[in-house]
């Protein structure tokens, strides 16, 4: 499912829903959570590459969003803002886990013995593993840029969300994608 379809949900939610949520309407906020949580978990997963941590990061982002929603002046910036918070929480959790005596071992990024949902193609599974290993060799900041870009955010949106210039995002993303191309071609 491409992110642009999820983005359509954002547009259809509309300014009125955002305004109600920002003013404390819990029903409206619940709809926003429903619209964005899964994308936030996906971005967090790209950043930390752990399903449980990704869900925890996305969940941890919502109390922050609830408190700070009124600070988002432009409803069109909501999705990039939420995705950036989830990515930041994922980085924090991943960092904490690294420090707690859990030595990283090579793991299959997919649930044990199960292929991608609806697919048991070994070739596709190997492809996912190669992709996961290539992403694992990036630093967390690079994975963040990749995750937000894969979610459909523009360089400008990514830059505003994470405090870089749009050109800086493009340069960094270009560098990272070149590296991924090289690694996946060699792998």
């Amino acid at each position, binding site marked *: 499912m491409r992110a642009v379809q999820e983005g359509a949900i954002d547009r259809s939610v509309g300014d009125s829903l955002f305004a109600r949520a920002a003013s404390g309407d819990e029903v409206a906020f619940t709809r926003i959570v429903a619209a964005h949580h899964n994308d936030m978990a996906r971005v967090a997963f790209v950043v930390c590459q752990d399903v449980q941590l990704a869900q925890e990061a996305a969940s941890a982002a919502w109390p*922050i969003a609830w408190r700070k929603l009124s600070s988002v002046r432009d409803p069109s910036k909501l999705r990039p803002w939420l995705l950036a918070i989830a990515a930041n929480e994922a980085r924090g959790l991943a960092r904490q886990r690294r420090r707690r005596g859990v030595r990283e071992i090579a793991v299959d990024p997919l649930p044990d013995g199960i292929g991608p949902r609806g697919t048991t193609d070994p070739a596709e599974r190997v492809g996912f593993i190669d992709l996961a290993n290539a992403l694992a*060799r990036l630093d967390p900041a690079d994975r963040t840029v*990749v995750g937000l870009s894969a979610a459909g955010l523009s360089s400008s949106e990514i830059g505003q969300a994470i405090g870089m210039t749009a050109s*800086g995002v493009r340069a960094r993303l270009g560098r990272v994608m070149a590296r991924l191309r090289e690694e996946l071609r060699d792998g």
Partner: protein
Amino acid sequence: MADQGRENRATTDATMLARIWGWADQAVEHIDASAIARAATARIPLHRSIALRVAGTGVNAPAISGPALRAILLLVLLASLAAGAVLVGSQHRSIPAVVGPASNGIIAFVRGGDIYTVDPASGSIELIVPGPQIDTDPIFSRDGTHIAFRRLHTPAEPTNWDLIVVRADGSDARVIIRDLSGLNFAWTPDSRGLVADTWIPSSHVGLVLLDTIGSQEPAWLTPPMPVYGPSPYAFAHGGGVAWFMRPPSGDRLLAAPDAYTGLSVMDRDGTDVIDLVDVTGLRGGYQSLPAWSPSGSRIAVTEARWAGDKEARLYVMDPDGSDLRMLGHATELGGEGQWSPDGSKIAVNQSRSIEPGTRDWCPVKWWVDSCPGDAWITIIDVETGDERDLEATFSPEWDGVGQEPARGGWSWSPDGRSILMLRELGGRPEIIDMESDTSTRLPWESDSTPSWQRIAAKP
């Protein structure tokens, strides 16, 4: 031709990004967000509205509010302690006020799930906590008399663990609490207790204060500290002390509901609140690792807008928020600053991204046009702001270490004359001498951050 090449790369990149998104979509289970929304919007503190899984009993505390819930939570924690604890007897000891530099004692480390101590001077190693269990993260109390560590339940449950305290020689083991599900713990500055975080399912983190001396019940610090998400608090290394508690007694707490809201100082009971300068409001960034100085006379906090492009800053201030100063220059700080034992300096992670086309610090094997950078530790004088990079701590990022020189953690030596660092879990730690800026690699390997015992001078 060049245009065609760029177009081909753009198409390839778009395809790759779509693959990444599809992979993430496959991996992350779609969940019902309603419970998450309810937790986020609860008008009472969140931990009161979310079931708390306690101590492996399968007990889910009912969602109730008010003082009754607090009493029930404490009773449940106490019950789990009574059911599972192995109390060999309580201790009563006088705790000296340990602040400032101390002498270097032994170092505790873990290898293969067992805890060892080593005398760095003689190299003599002792196995102090053997056994079939997987033990990790030994941390000396600030007075050097005890070691706290985590005991994992099983390799399949790395985030569920018990917290155990032993004497420095490994004797007198006591289970302080069972089945914590958080990621962090640290000693209180007075060496009397431990602070740990524990996850509340589908919500976030609570901080619990545990008594290691007498028999006081476990007590939530949150509230009165704000309930918060993944911690902005000082659970980093730096000697394994909860630096959000003011030394030496831990009477005043640095508190913030999350990394995006201003910091406050308060008493342990939540009174006498002072709002400090909101560094997150200066540039719309986030704060990390607020920490009292070892004497409790100053506060340091890092503010960053992501670690990249020279956007992180280190601030110090007085306990009432006055005399706010930025230390050093804005740079790609990794966010982990640690006060020296005498409070005169702060050591901080730094990193640097290398721009394409340069060869500076780019390892030979790496691609010239995509060398990502490196990381090291900088020492900053708190009074003068003078900076000094420790060359011996340099670590290249190209192997995916990330923007910190030591994924296995680092800390000041008790005497403040060196840095103990572990670049990679399972590797050999190093002692970086401040004066000579040289590294000595120790002859043993550690699976988690080693901890250096402080031997305080007798009064």
